[in-house]
């Protein structure tokens, strides 16, 4: 950490520099200590986190009251995790991300073991089934989805490998094979959890990184072909995945779905969005959150945003997300080394992908796949992991060649 700090132009040991630091220190006593992190990015993170908490409270209180007898059920735990996550984010921002080189393999192995454990210990206290899905791991003090960590893990290992082999990315041996094997392992373990959306995000993020990293385009064609064939096989020939096909039918025609297809959630989401119209029904005034829209605090929270804040409000939030992702990518591209760049791009792209997919699901642009909205959806561990990743980006920003405010 010390070495990296020394290289920063803003903290050069010159007398003028010291004076400058003092000025900056006075101005931003907490966040800009040693004139490090990218303020626009940090502000965007905190803004979205704040809006997310407010919207979660609004969206969840009727549901909480009905199911837990307490309107604050979700917001209380979410707020605690938000504070915890913010602290972790700030701490990580001080942490030199280069140390992550050493953690790339260990984290990958642990995550792969945890994914395997979810399947091996299915339906035991270690890996309880929640809502019919076998995705959770319970370590006694904490319960989380290993697939959430898997997303970060694959970004990290890819960034690690790419930063080492960046000169040989155009070869199959160094530019395709290792990534394909790793992706195969992760995706394989997640797909057997029947976690379609998790598989989708992991694969997409992995391929985006390979694309950015320099893998030749022709390999994508092959990879895409294989992946497409696998998906087609699963959709059309495996009865286990027949539910995915039904969802697609319901997606095309949500108001008049084929028999046995339940599009209630989508329809209620569209009712909520439509009710918002241009200016929204007002914060806290949603009608659809009164148990009409199932789990309004989760994957479909954006529908309540649309209802309460209207088209204008939804557009503002989409722009905030766009700005965050854009800024994240800018930070990454300006990182002082390839590891930082690939790591940053991966994190920014993963967050971006999740936001885009979630909003597309809520607006019925794509079929309902079950992806949560970063900063908004309820879920303590995923919020902490997200904020930790933001911390990594902030850490990268400390040494990246961008203009600091």
């Amino acid at each position, binding site marked *: 950490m010390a070495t990296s700090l020394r290289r920063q132009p803003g903290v050069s040991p010159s007398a003028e520099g010291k004076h400058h630091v003092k000025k900056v220190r006075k101005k931003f006593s907490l966040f800009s200590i040693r004139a490090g992190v990218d303020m626009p990015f940090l502000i965007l993170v905190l803004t979205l986190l704040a809006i997310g908490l407010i919207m979660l409270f609004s969206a969840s209180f009727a549901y909480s009251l009905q199911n837990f007898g307490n309107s604050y059920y979700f917001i209380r735990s979410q707020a605690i995790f938000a504070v915890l996550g913010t602290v972790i984010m700030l701490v990580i921002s001080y942490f030199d991300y280069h140390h992550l080189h050493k953690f790339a393999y260990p984290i990958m192995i642990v995550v792969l073991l945890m994914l395997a454990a979810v399947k091996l210990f299915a339906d035991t206290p270690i890996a309880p089934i929640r809502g019919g899905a076998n995705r959770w791991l319970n370590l006694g003090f904490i319960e989380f989805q290993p697939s959430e960590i898997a997303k970060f893990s694959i970004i990290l290992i890819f960034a690690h490998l790419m930063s080492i082999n960046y000169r040989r990315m155009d070869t199959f041996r160094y530019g395709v094979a290792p990534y394909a094997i790793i992706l195969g392992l992760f995706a394989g373990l997640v797909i057997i959890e029947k976690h379609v959306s998790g598989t989708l995000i992991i694969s997409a993020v992995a391929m985006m990184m390979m*694309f950015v990293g320099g893998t030749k385009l022709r390999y994508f064609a092959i990879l895409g072909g294989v992946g497409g064939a696998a998906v087609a096989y699963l959709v059309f020939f495996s009865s286990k995945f027949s539910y995915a096909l039904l969802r697609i039918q319901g997606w095309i025609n949500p108001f008049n779905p084929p028999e046995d297809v339940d599009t209630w959630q989508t329809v209620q989401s569209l009712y909520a969005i*439509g009710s918002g119209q241009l200016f929204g029904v007002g914060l806290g005034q949603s*009608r659809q959150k*009164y148990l009409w829209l199932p789990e309004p605090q989760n994957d479909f929270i954006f529908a309540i945003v649309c209802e309460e804040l209207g088209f204008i409000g939804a557009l503002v939030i989409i722009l905030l997300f766009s700005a965050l992702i854009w800024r994240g990518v800018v930070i990454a591209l300006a990182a002082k080394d390839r590891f930082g760049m690939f790591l940053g791009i991966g994190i920014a792209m993963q967050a971006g992908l999740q936001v885009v997919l979630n*909003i597309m699901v809520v607006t019925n642009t794509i079929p309902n796949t079950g992806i949560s909205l970063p900063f908004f959806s309820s879920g303590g561990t995923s919020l902490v992991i997200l904020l930790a990743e933001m911390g990594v980006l902030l850490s990268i920003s400390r040494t990246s060649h961008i203009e600091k405010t």
Partner: protein
Amino acid sequence: MAEMKPVKTIHRTVFLLILLLGLGFGLAVANLVRWQLVRGEELRTAAIDQSLTSTFLNAERGTIYDTTGKVVAESASVWSVVLEPNYIEDDERETIVTGLAKILDMKEEDVRAEAEVDSYFTYLKRKTESSVKDEILAFLEEEEISGGVRMVEEYKRYYPYGSTCSSVLGFVGTDNNGLYGLELYYDDELSGTQGRLVRATNAVGTDMPFQYEQLVEAQDGYDLYMTIDMTVQSIIEKHLKKGVEDNLVQNGAAAIVMDVDTGGIVAMASVGDFDPNQPFEIADENLRKQIEALPEDKEEEAWNEALLQQWRNKAINDTYYPGSVFKMVTGSAGLEEGIITPDTTFTCTGAVQVEDTWINCWDTTGHGTQTFREGLCNSCNPFFIEIGSQLGPDMFYEYFKSFGFTEHTGIDLPGEANNLYYTAEQLKPVELATESFGQNFSITPLQMVTAASTIANGGNLVQPHVVEKVVDASGNIVSTADMSYKRQVISEETARTMIDILQENATTGTAKNGYVAGYRVCGKTGTSEKVAKWLEDKTKPMTYIASYCGFAPADDPKYALIVMLDEPTGASYYGGAVAGPVFQAMMSEILPYLGVTAEYTEEEAAKLNTTAPSVENLTVEEARDAIENAGLTCKVIGGEEEGTTVIRQIPAAGAEVPRDGMVVLYTSSESLEETVEVPDFTNYSLQDVLAIASARDLQITVEGAGLQSSNVTAYSQDITAGSKVAPGTVITVNFIEKDQVN
């Protein structure tokens, strides 16, 4: 630095970024535009609609009154127990089942079955009294039941007069919807409009924290005021039932009283009827027992058949051949067209040949040469065949149509029957001949009495109706019956002539069994052969319908009455003998009630009763003088020593006594104990009745045809045979001309 990061990496990154944000968000925003801005209103409406729960508020069904303001049908609040099984908490279900089963006296398993269905609304028990509601509410409070049981207010229909007027009133179903009669015809007016309470609720049905509640009050139904007078109705029904019993009538009977000027129905009776409070029970006990004795597979069919039969309003739902009653129509047409005058003569030989067919007069020996006046009083068929043939098919049909026989009368009751008749083109000589005296075409009793009213009111066809006015809850009149004439059918002069002849007919003619002293009754009898039924099975004997149609008083007719008895199987089947006495009994009771004043001819007055003077507490001598001064004789029971006082007189002071009757004086307390048994006078001649009565110290007031003719027999008496009465008691005996035919 740039040299460390190939431009390719940046390009690829930016490409991905633009793809992700541009395409992803682009499509999402495009959809937001679609859902929020283009289809926003539609989706918002759908969202609001699904969250609005409306509760129906029942409207109170209007009351039906008779013309004097008596309540004939009304609704009272009752409570239905409603279960909302999906809102019942599982741990409370058993408490609810046991509790409600006990309160409602139901089987626990039945209640449980209802409480476990997947539903938000199911009736557990309809229409319980409010005491049951209070009990249930107390139970719910005591057991702290959180939800799933509700009491819903409904209305139950009550008919305080029971079966009286039932075939006109009809009845309602479980949902208070009119199923028959007035209840059906005026269902829209009576039922009002359901109200709605609209609330915003969440997906499980509890209220949202919005101030959203909209109440549309239920609008109670309108009240009906009938033209029917329940007193007249009761009188008509009483006599009609007696007529059915006396004459062993097999197929029911009908009677209608109509206000001849307005077409308002004052009474309309049908035998057999039912109790509208329990319309699905068979009212005729014998019939019910018969049906219950049937094997199970036939029972239901027979039961339903019997229900339909008892619900029928024979006065408008059934058709019949009017028979000779119709002669008043043919006669009117003949008079109006100048084909005949009352004095036109015709010779009846007992039969007449029409083309190849010989048609007999009812009196096959023939009536000889007679005027039209006499011909109608004789009810001579050949005379009317002659009138019909002179009118010709076109003219005859014109009058037939004009009197209203080719269309429904349009009365405000459901199910008026379609009648059958020949059109002008179809009326060949034989058909014309038979129609001229009322055979070979079918009409409803209502059509016949409407035609009679036309003659009675001076020639105008009226609009029959049962409801005089429809009134809303605050007493404003919503609509009134159309009482204007439909058209003038015959001239007043013709009508006047017919009235005159019909009065003569009812006084000395074939219709004299309908005679009521002092009330100037006009009438015509009818006996129709049920040819159509006989043709179906010629092995069975011919059956008949006896009818009598008339009106009173002759100088200014007010009320028309038709009596029709379907298949009498007693001593006689002729209209005069069977329907006439029923008509007479009805008229003599309703005309005084309806305010028609009696005007007696000298001859009638001579036969009228007088009143007994007050002689109690006088000495026997004083009493005897007073009684003899009044033109009566006296008889003393209990000894008459000098100065004995009269302690009681029979008949009482002011009571009616036959003109040449007596007053019995009681002078001792033992004498008060004396009684005589009332004999059964039925079928005895007038002379015999007077002799029998006199032998027992009883007195007779003669009514009916007995006042006009001596060839009569007793038909009914006002004190039942076998009762013990004091000597001197006056018994009213109704006489009819038993051998009265046609």
